[in-house]
Structure formats: structure tokens, C-alpha cells
């Protein structure tokens, strides 16, 4: 394969970052104050929660399943833990903020485990299973926390709220996000688990025959999604310094959009951690630009939908272009072979 072709294919495979740069340049030129440091920090900060959910959704998508319960876990996990520490058993170990953080993550992971076991062992359809869990958790959150609980322990809200003056007022949440993405980049690219996980999404039966424990892979996907949703919950609770029953409402579908924008395949087997980060940031950047332009809040959703539509369209073109490039190369090769005779 020629180097020229390799570069073209690499660019095509990372088209999300090209779109991101392009969009940034356009906004920087036309939207006042868009390219300022403060605004960039602002965009990154506002992307953090969504980016956790994008990664959660993207991770499950890679195994060929999906998870509709992530935004419900976002609200339920911190809600339950804070309630336990403040109302049910105040003054016990549950009130310790470090324990509370660990418990929040554990609740998310356990809910994911429940989803995963139901889907992979009991053979339930991922759509129905996670939809039912989503409705149950939202309902329970509403029942348990009719009114917001605040303020929270500063340690508990640290990763959602704190900013570091030394690094241009960058919020802790941004570092957490980048760290998590880096971690999953390594997991997906460089560990046996990651490769087996992607293989399971690419062709479950073939992976099983090849000796991969595919059921465990699927369970792990949901567990990770649950834990990541809980991280998103920590970030949300920290940012608003409270837990409430509306946290994260309606974010699941946008998380799909971010994952797809980032190049994750709906049918499994394909996706990268950094691609999804790009997708999440693009979503955040877009709503930030609309904000700065003074677009009505009520119109933001429709605009976001349009962006998603455009992204899907571009993705279709990308796949066709990729195929065309490869065919051209094949023809070139045939010509060479023909010439040699």
C-alpha cells in the first residue's frame, strides 16, 4: 500500500478530529469570544459529564449491544449513596466522603452487572432490558429524592467542582475525563481484554469459536458503562453541589450521537476511545457556540439534531470514499501486473 493512500485512509479514519478543527476554526472566526482561553476551558468543563456518558454508551456499542439506562444510573447511583449517608445512616461510615465515592462507583458497576447478566446469561434483549432498568431507576430516584439534597461534602463534590488556578483555572473534572479516556484508550488498544472485547462485537459467534469468553465480554461492557455513568453522576453532583432527581435527564440519546460522531459502529466491533472524546467535544463545542451566538435555548435541541444528521451523512460519504480509494489502488495494482506480462 502506498504511503499516499495510507495517509488518506488515516485521515478518513480520524475524520472526527478534522471536523472538530474545522468547526473550531469557523467558530473562532465568526463567534465573538469563542477562541478565548476562558471559553475553551468552559467548553471542556461542560463536555465532561456528556463525555463520560458517550464513553459508556460507546463502550457498550462496541460489543454490539446498547444501554438505555446510563442517564438513570447517573442520577440513581450518587442519589442513593448520598441519601444513605445523610438520611438513613448519618454519622456512620457511609458519611465518609471517600467511602461514598467508592460506593457510588460500586452501585453503578453493580447496576451494569445486573444489565449485563440479564442480557448475556438470560438472553434478554438489550433494548428492553436497559429500558426497563432505566424506567425503574428514574422512578426510584424520584421517589427517594423528591427534593434536592444539598450541600454535599467538599471531598465528594471535589472532582465535579474544583478548579486549579495554577493551570489557567482548569477544572478537576477535565483532568478526570482525560485520564479516564487515556485509560480506556490503553485498555482497548493494548490489552488482551480490549482486543477480545472488540472481536466479540465484530462477530460474536466467531469470537466464541476462537476461544473468547464472549458472555463475560458482554457483561464487562455493561459493568464498565455502569461505572462510567456513576462517574458522570459524581461530576454532575459535584458541579451543582447537590443531588436531585432530574440529573442527566435525556442525555442517553445524545450519548449515542456523540459515540456515533466519534466513529463507533452501531453494529459493534469498531470504535476508539479518542474518537469518542472528539465526538463528545464536538457536541459541547456546538452548543457552546449556539449559546454565545444568543440562539434561543428552545432551538438548541433541533440544532443539535441537525448536527447529528450531518455527521451521519458525512460518515456515509467517508465509507464510500474509503471503498473507492481501495478499489482505485487495486486497479492500479492490476495494471502494473498486466504491464509486467
Amino acid at each position: 500500500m502506498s504511503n499516499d493512500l495510507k495517509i488518506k485512509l488515516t485521515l478518513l479514519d480520524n475524520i472526527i478530529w478534522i471536523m472538530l478543527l474545522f468547526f473550531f476554526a469557523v467558530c473562532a472566526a465568526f463567534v465573538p469570544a469563542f477562541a478565548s482561553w476562558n471559553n475553551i476551558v468552559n467548553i471542556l468543563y461542560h463536555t465532561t459529564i456528556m463525555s463520560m456518558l458517550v464513553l459508556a454508551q460507546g463502550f457498550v456499542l462496541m460489543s454490539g449491544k446498547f444501554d438505555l439506562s446510563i442517564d438513570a444510573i447517573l442520577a440513581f447511583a450518587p442519589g442513593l449513596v448520598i441519601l444513605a449517608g445523610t438520611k438513613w445512616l448519618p454519622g456512620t461510615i457511609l458519611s465518609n466522603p471517600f467511602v461514598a465515592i467508592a460506593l457510588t462507583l460500586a452501585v453503578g458497576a453493580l447496576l451494569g452487572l445486573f444489565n449485563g447478566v440479564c442480557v448475556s446469561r438470560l438472553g434478554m434483549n438489550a433494548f428492553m432490558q436497559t429500558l426497563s432498568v432505566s424506567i425503574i431507576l428514574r422512578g426510584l430516584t424520584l421517589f427517594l429524592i423528591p427534593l434536592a439534597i444539598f450541600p454535599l461534602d467538599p471531598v465528594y463534590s471535589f472532582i465535579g467542582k474544583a478548579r486549579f488556578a495554577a493551570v489557567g483555572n482548569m477544572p478537576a473534572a477535565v483532568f478526570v475525563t482525560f485520564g479516564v479516556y487515556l485509560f480506556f484508550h490503553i485498555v482497548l488498544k493494548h490489552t488482551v481484554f480490549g482486543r477480545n472485547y472488540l472481536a466479540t462485537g465484530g462477530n460474536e459467534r466467531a469470537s466464541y469459536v476462537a476461544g473468547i469468553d464472549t458472555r463475560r465480554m458482554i457483561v464487562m461492557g455493561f459493568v464498565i458503562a455502569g461505572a462510567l455513568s456513576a462517574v458522570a453522576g459524581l461530576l454532575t453532583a459535584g458541579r451543582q453541589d447537590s443531588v436531585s432527581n432530574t440529573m442527566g435527564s435525556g442525555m442517553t440519546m445524545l450519548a449515542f450521537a456523540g459515540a456515533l460522531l466519534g466513529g463507533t459502529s452501531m453494529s459493534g466491533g469498531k470504535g476508539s476511545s479518542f474518537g469518542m472524546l472528539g465526538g463528545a467535544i464536538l457536541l459541547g463545542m456546538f452548543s457552546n457556540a449556539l449559546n454565545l451566538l444568543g440562539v434561543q435555548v428552545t432551538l438548541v435541541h433541533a440544532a443539535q439534531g441537525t448536527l447529528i444528521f450531518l455527521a451521519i451523512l458525512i460518515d456515509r460519504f467517508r465509507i464510500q470514499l474509503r471503498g473507492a480509494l481501495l478499489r482505485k489502488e487495486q486497479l492500479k495494482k492490476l495494471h502494473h501486473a498486466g504491464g509486467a506480462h
Partner: protein
Amino acid sequence: MTAPATETMNTPGAGRAGESALRLRGITKIYPGTVALEDVALDVRYGEVHGLMGKNGAGKSTLVGVLAGLIEPTSGTIAVGGRDYPRLTRMQAKREGIAIVTQEPEIILDITVAENLFLGDFPTRGGFVDRPEMFERARELLDRFGLDIGAEFRAGDLSLSERQLLLIIKACYVEDASVVILDESSAPLTRKDAQILRRIVGDLRDAGKAIVVISHSVDELLDVCDRLTVLRDGRTIATRRASDLDRRTLSELIVGDGFTACRTRSDESAPPGGELLAVENLTRWGAFEGVSFTLRRGEILGIAGLRGSGRTEILKAIAGIEPADAGTIELRGRACAFRRPSEALKEGVAYLPEEREAEGLIGIFSIRDNLILNSLAQFARSGFIRGGECDRRAAETFGAVQIRAFSLEQAVEELSGGNRQKVVIGRIMTAGPDVYLLDEPTRGVDIGAKKGILSLICEKIRGNAGVIITSPGLDDLIDICDRILVLCGGRIAKSVARADFDEKALFMDIQGFGQ
């Protein structure tokens, strides 16, 4: 040479016994790298049952594809219903009343038997489906042939055999075809349902329809057919009346001289190694029974048998994919019973799936990632993959199996069938197992790739490992095996050593004729 325009349209299904229903002349089909059919002629008359026979790869399925309008011939003409077609599309074939039933019954599982029967031809009244009428007619058809199925049953609850009969009845009576092609459609049938099929075929013949039957079973064809056409290497060898043939002469026509021009295997020496695998009385109910054999290091053991004889199932049982119900397997002198493929792989038993696309490949992965799929754990240190080691081993295998591709990074779904198969074989080789279970490794690949795969097995795979290989045809097995086990109806009928290979005798054994 089109028919005169004044000729009245033939009503499909009208009985004109003795007249020509289908006439093929000079049909040639060339695929890149292989000639599937060469100057084939075929005449099928109304009111006859015409059998089509030949070894695997003789060109039967290509010819059937041409008849049914699924494959476009490179040259030649097809005369059907008094009209000459240089090529027949599926829609034209259907208009001319040609129906085809294949060996894989495709029905819609969640609707009733009656709805499946009348799908596409629903009886209507005033624009609405006339359900009472539909069920009434379905019941009539089912009763007529003594099928013990209710018209209101959910089709998904039927057995494979019953589904197949359903499709045959649909093609013959609901679509009312005048030419019915049964492409190995008796394969999934139970003994009782095969009797019903026989009655249906007789009934169709009496109604003056033309029936083309393709089958691997000599007995079945001699029993039901009026005339038989034998194909070999893409050519028509003979068309004879069934009454002029017996088992032996028909077998000889099919096998031919049985002389393979070029041999892949260069040495004839017996395998040197000690015993590696011993299978004792292995049984999986409904698939195979009391199967015993041993495999030595450096040996290539072939399993020959018709479809449904249990050859795939035996390999799957050893590999732990569909474990056996009874019997023992000893690997390197230790008893083992794998319950899942991962366990077998750990002990050095690797299975090459017969269903390449469904069970063998991750299409959107690169060649490199497919090649190392089985052996990731070998290249990892505490869970982390050593990239350099992976690249080295993948490149090594890539070179050994000679995959034609731009680079290791190309996605597997962009490769041709033969190259994909090499990727699957390469994947197993990378893991370096002790026992290779190769389930039809030459299935669906062209001649060149086939030769490549066979010599790969002889020269690079065999080494110190043991190989068990299955094939629907005998050629490959005779070419490279040290020993062939003949499987018939789920039991081992015979074990033949390389010195005693004789294609005709083996062919008769597979058919279950014995000596």
C-alpha cells in the same frame, strides 16, 4: 431466434407430457480463475423426473443457478416455454414457471404455516386477505400428503424436515410451477418425510410437470428419477434412462477415471510420531454414534461422508463447541472433555470452522488482528499486548499462508473468498496448536487457492502436529491424507490407509453400499 409472436402463452403448469420443458445448449460459465461449466447441454421434459449428479465441484450448483435464473452464464442459450434466453433473470424464470427449493429451508418463523404457504400469493376477497379460504386450502394441501401439521401452527415450531416439506409444497402447488428444481432438498428430510416427498414427486410427474432433482445419494436418484444427467469437471458426461443404470455403473460415471493429474503431497511416508489423540466410543445423539479412532503426530486424517453423516459434528465435539453425550477423548494420554472452545484452545486443540463468515472471521478487523485473534494471550505480559511481537508473528503467518492483500492492515471483508479462508487458517497456525481440526478448509475457494491451502497443510501445518480434515468431496482427501475414515449415517464404516486409496471404492463406501 425468438418464438413466433403469435404463439399462445404457455400456462405454467399445464401438462404437456413428453414435450421439452427446458433445453440448455452450450452453457459455459467462467469465473475468474476457474471454469465452472463448459459447453453443458441438458434437456428436461414435461412429465419426467430428471436427476442431476456429480461429485463436489462438478458444476451442479452452478448449473442449478443458471436454470433458476440466479447465475448468468458466460455463453450458451436456455430455451424454456418455447423461448430462447441468452440469460435468464430470476424474475423471468419465475414467470416461466420455474421454482427452486434449496437445502436450507428459509421460512418466516413467527407466522402460521398457512401464511407461509401462501406468502406472496394470498387468496384475497375485496382487497383483504381471505383468511378462512387460506386456512381451508392450506389444510387441504397438508391433508393430501398426510402431513401431521396444523395449518394454524406457528411455522417456527416445525422441525427442519417439516419446514422443508412446507417449502416444497409451496413451490409445487401454491406457486404452481411447471418446472420444479429440488436442489438437495431431501437432505434435511426424515425418513417419513422423504416418503412424502416421493409421493409429491410422483404426483407432479402424473400432472405433467418437469422435476429436476439434485442429490448426492445414488440410491435416491435411481429410485425416483426417469432419466439422469451426470456432470464431471463442469462437463456433461452422459444422460441415461434410470432403468438402464445400476449403482455401480452410475458410480463409475460420476467418479470417472478417478485419476488426479497433479498431486500436492510429495512424500508418501507414513507419519512418524506417536499417538496424540485417541477418541473412544464418542456419541452425540442424533449426529454420530460409537466413533473411535486415533491420531498420531504428523498424521493427516481425513473424514469422508455425505452431508449429515456427522463429519462436522465429530470435529465440533472434540473442539468443545458441541460437546459429545458419551464416550471419551484422550489427548496426549490424558482424558479430557472440553465444554467450550476456549478450554480446547488452551490444550492446543484448534478448530477451523466450516462456516467461514459466521464462525471464522471478524470482517471489520484487519488481517493482522484476525491472524492473532486466537493467540493474544501468548503475546501478552500481565494482560498487556506486546505490539512488536504481535506484528512479527502476524507477518510471519502472513508470509507463510501467502495471502494476497496490500498490507496486513487491510480489512478482511475486502478480501476474496480464497484469501479469507487463508486468513482463518493462518489464525489457527499463529496459535501453534497440537491438533488441527479443519472442517472443509477448501470450501468455496477457487482452484488456485485450493492447491495453496492443501500444500500448506502438507508442508507447513503438519510438522509435529496432528491434522483431522473433512471435505464434501474425496479428491482433496485422497490427495493429502494418510488415512481416511468413511462415515456413513453417523458411524465409521471403514478406515482406509493411504496405500489402499481407491476413489471408486471410497465413493461406494460413502454411499453405504459396502462390499
